[in-house]
């Protein structure tokens, strides 16, 4: 039975509603916990997270996928409590964001070790709890896929196949290499969401990925010119990308998110978009770009509902 693991238990896919597919609460490259100058006030972070999730909820959002993964700020207790008091379905992810976000303890792992770890988090529980992750989230840093990252990707694929969980990737610059790995490992591409597609704009690439059956996520919505990040751009451009994807018949392969970070646990480089922007400002932007209501609904509700839940095909294998 397809289902979504949230921090408070499992949901039927029909309960997911509008979904932000790639967000962060606490986020930092590994090691921040040893640097007092990188520590936020946790009570303040909790309040800010609470406010942002409630804002999202009041705007109609219902499911929030927290993509930080292992060691990059995922705080299970914090997330469970936040889910309980806001009523937003928060989904935790398993996986490592990139080489730089993989703590030393795991740097000797090979692909099968990673697969075993991710599978455990998806099917048994995170840490010593029985609270399960709902999706796999992995990626690579700028400048290609390192050896460690390759093992992480392969581990993620094997865990996705073993459990039926969806895989969200971050590192669009390696899209071709990722596809090669997925094909080598025989992962069905409809189980994959390529994130960060608005980091390097390439409509042809996106259409190619969609044509292969994968999803593409424009997941830095709201990151506009005020940011000094190199991939900041007007939301209008993102909306046009979506409009063109829909126009070419690829609306069923698009997902959206704000890529927000409530607290950046480093020394600077804050990414201050928030998840409410997705519904408050970006949906009107999509309408302005001529995307039909029905297509917007498919993107925010239908596509995540189809892809993100844990599911197996009729033969009992991973779909």
């Amino acid at each position, binding site marked *: 039975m397809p289902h979504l693991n949230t921090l408070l238990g499992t949901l039927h896919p029909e309960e997911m509603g509008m979904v932000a597919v790639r967000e962060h609460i606490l986020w930092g490259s590994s090691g921040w916990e040893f640097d007092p100058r990188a520590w936020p006030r946790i009570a303040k972070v*909790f*309040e800010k997270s609470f406010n942002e999730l409630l804002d999202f909820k009041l705007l109609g959002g219902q499911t929030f996928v927290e993509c930080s993964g292992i060691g990059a700020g995922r705080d299970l207790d914090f997330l469970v409590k936040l889910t309980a008091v806001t009523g937003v379905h928060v989904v935790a992810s398993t996986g490592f964001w990139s080489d730089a976000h993989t703590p030393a303890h795991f740097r000797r792992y090979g692909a099968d070790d990673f697969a075993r770890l991710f599978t455990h988090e998806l099917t048994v529980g995170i840490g010593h709890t029985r*609270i399960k992750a709902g999706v796999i989230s992995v990626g690579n840093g700028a400048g290609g896929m390192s050896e460690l990252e390759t093992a992480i990707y392969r581990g993620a694929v094997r865990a996705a196949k073993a459990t039926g969980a969806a895989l969200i990737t971050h590192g669009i610059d390696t899209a071709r290499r990722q596809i090669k790995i997925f094909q080598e490992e025989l992962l069905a591409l409809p189980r994959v969401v390529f994130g960060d597609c608005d980091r390097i704009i390439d409509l042809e690439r996106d259409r190619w990925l969609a044509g292969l059956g994968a999803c593409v996520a424009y997941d830095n919505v709201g990151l506009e010119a005020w940011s000094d990040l190199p991939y900041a751009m007007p939301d209008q451009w993102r909306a046009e990308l979506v409009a063109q994807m829909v126009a070419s018949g690829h609306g069923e392969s698009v997902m959206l998110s704000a890529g927000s970070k409530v607290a950046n646990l480093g020394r600077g480089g804050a990414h201050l978009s928030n998840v409410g922007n997705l519904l408050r400002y970006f949906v009107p932007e999509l309408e302005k770009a001529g995307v039909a209501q029905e297509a917007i609904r498919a993107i925010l509700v239908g596509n995540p509902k189809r892809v993100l839940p844990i599911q197996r095909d009729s033969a009992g294998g991973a779909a």
Partner: protein
Amino acid sequence: MAHVNTVMGAIHPDELGPTATHEHIVWGPPGWEHDPEWWFHYPQVFAKCLAGLVEYRELGGRSIMCCSGIGLGRDVEFYRMLSKYSGVNIIVPTGFWAAAGIPNHFLGKSIDYLSDMFVGELTDGIGNTGVRPGFIKVGIGRTMTPGDEMLHRAAARAAKRAGVPVVSHGAWEALKVLEILGSEGMDLSRVIISHCSHGGAIDPVRDRKVASMGAWISYDSFTVTNTSAVTHYAHPDEKRAEAVKQMIDAGFMHRMLLSSDNNLFSLGWMRSSPYVGKATQADFLRSTPGKLRRIGISEEIFWKILTENPKQVMAIQ
């Protein structure tokens, strides 16, 4: 291996440090969550509890036993957050308050059913959290009802199986409590009789009797002096200090626990509303040594009782 179960995992008894043994981080009677009058802005609840624990730690406290049982506010993930970010060890119970505070779902369950459930939590953890309670909490109302007796029997059976202490909210029927627990074969040195210093519950003769039977006397309402906020057990701390002195003089310093029974945030208890001026565990550390010093008990003794005694009674062997 001797250990104490905290919400962050088992620790060595030497790591407990000064411990307030009968407190509540949050407490609410079953059902409070359905009453919108008690729906607080949760970030504020977190901020207030965290600040309270940080202050407690700054004043020398290291561990807190939260006596809020099942359905009474015990909130494992919330407590883990608080423990991790304050550095205070938090120990939670399995069990209930008195039979009068049992959620309806558990009414009519047998002694063995309850006992098995307590053991389940003590060995497999609470819900899906993997967190093991450190003791069993039970209690009585004004008198020992048949339901209260059942609870005590279930607690004793579970305690024997899991090796944990039992905290009984029932000073006013202490001998009855010990008789029931004892009749189930429980080692009385693993029993804490709570609320021996509540207004109306002070009884030095009883306390000496209880202590001489090997059980622990808990003077756990220090700082609860505001009779307009907490009517039924507030009274001057001087009376509590006097009880402590009498016990020490009778040679029972090693059978005594001190605490303040404060909630850092009340989840639905009118008489202890979070907005009524009330004390915290930090106030307990701040004001109690002075109360004791005035009648000749040194501060060193205060900290010794707070450190050495919990270590003894809480250690699961």
